[in-house]
């Protein structure tokens, strides 16, 4: 499999995902996210959009007057991840996800990145669970769930 940045591809003949890719192109133009395309035998088999993000945890210790302690955790957000219908069930999605996870680890060496996060719902929740992601506390009952994976230090 080959990975390249969205702008490196001049023509994208992928009807099913073309509207989504158009959106990602706009994000990339505005520097809000970078979409990586994954090719196999010169065909796009999937893509993933990565964005810098952070988790804000507001802790209120039992003190009076209440003083709120805020902790920030820098994170890499998987904005979009999709696999071409023809390549479903071949671990393409899993490999793209693992690629994103390792990208976060590589980033953590230079800019600090504690977590990989994703907002998802429905079937993909099981997919991310299989990869190793966990659902945020108190998010289990929500329709769209925030999920995270810790990035090892060092």
């Amino acid at each position: 499999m080959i990975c390249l940045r969205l702008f490196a591809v001049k023509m994208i003949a992928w009807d099913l995902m073309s509207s989504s890719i158009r959106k990602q192109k706009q994000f990339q133009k505005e520097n809000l996210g970078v979409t990586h395309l994954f090719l196999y035998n010169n065909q796009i088999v999937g893509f993933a959009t990565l964005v810098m993000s952070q988790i804000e945890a507001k802790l209120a210790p039992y003190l009076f007057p209440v003083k709120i302690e805020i902790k920030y955790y820098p994170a890499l957000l998987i904005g979009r991840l999709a696999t071409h219908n023809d390549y479903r069930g071949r671990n393409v999605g899993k490999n793209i996800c693992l690629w994103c996870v390792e990208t976060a680890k590589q980033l953590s060496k230079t800019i600090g990145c504690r977590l990989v996060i994703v907002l998802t719902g429905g079937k993909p929740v099981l997919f991310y669970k299989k990869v190793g992601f966990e659902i945020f506390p108190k998010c289990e009952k929500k329709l769209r769930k925030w999920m995270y994976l810790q990035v090892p230090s060092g």
Partner: protein
Amino acid sequence: MRPEPAPVLTGKCAKEFVKKVEMPLTQKNIEVFKEAEKVYKAIKKVK
């Protein structure tokens, strides 16, 4: 606009999350990253 807003955790949710994140990584988590490293190396990057 960003693709998704970043989550803000408050109350018990924040407390539970911070507790989990500050614990050492599990064996499963370490294995995920070992597999991820292999995949990352196997995927050729083109500029």
